[in-house]
């Protein structure tokens, strides 16, 4: 390619480049980009909770259930112990041949 022709070609190329450079973005492009950015950032924030939070909630729930079982069991043990004691008292009373009706006879207490 001779130099003159090359220069002519390059001028045409530069003219095409200048036309491309003159292309302007849509005036609302910035608004659209900002809206899409905000929705993506908000979606990220709602997903990205700390990993330890659900673990902590599960552990606390399990701990509450375990505590509940424990308290419930303690109640059962005490009730069983009470029942056991009541039975022993009955046995002792039977051994003393103490009559319930006698308990209620107020004359027993009278010195007459």
């Amino acid at each position: 390619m001779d130099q003159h022709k090359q220069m002519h070609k390059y001028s045409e190329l530069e003219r095409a480049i200048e036309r491309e450079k003159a292309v302007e973005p849509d005036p609302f492009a910035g608004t659209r980009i900002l809206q899409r950015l905000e929705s993506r950032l908000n979606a990220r924030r709602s997903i990205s909770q700390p990993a330890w939070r659900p673990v902590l909630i599960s552990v606390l729930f399990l701990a509450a259930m375990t505590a509940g079982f424990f308290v419930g069991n303690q109640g059962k043990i005490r009730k069983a112990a009470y029942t056991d004691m009541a039975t022993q008292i009955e046995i002792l009373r039977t051994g003393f041949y103490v009559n319930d009706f006698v308990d209620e006879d107020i004359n027993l207490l009278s010195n007459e």
Partner: protein
Amino acid sequence: MTEQELIRGLTSGNREAVKSLVETYQKKVIKTAYYYLGDMEEAEDTAQEVFLEIIRSAGKFRGSSALSTWIYRITVNRSLNAAKKKKRRQIFVRMEKMLGMAKATEMATTGELLHENGEVSGEESFAWLRAALAGLPENQRKVFIMSKYDEMSYREISEVTGFSISAIESLIHRAKMNLLKKFSSHGPTQTNA
């Protein structure tokens, strides 16, 4: 908002900082992406990805270069990646063309839409020019666009790319020669100026 305030705001997720970032840099980012991609819609999508990366990486910005230089570097890298993906899509279009299934508009993006007499009309010369630029080696394209489209000085190009001034001169010269070769082989008469 100063650069430091902007970076601090972006790091802490401040909405006003995001808004300021987009308002200040959106035109430059979109236009730069457009020079690589040749399509305004794709340039907008790429610009969105650029801003997202800036927001995510704001905490890593150390201030060793100007904020605008850092943003520009991210824009160029993202645009080049998007252009590579686009090129891969165009390969599929070429394959479809071989099978007789490609549409004319798709052929235009590969720079093959020419009139029968080899002349290129004004609008189509955009497509031709984009295809010619896309056909350049990556470094030549990068440096040529920075110099001719973004009107950056050789020193500024050197700061962004890390190339020496002499390497930049050489790349621009080679890019010009390659573009002129493509211009000649496509039959260069312009019908609409």
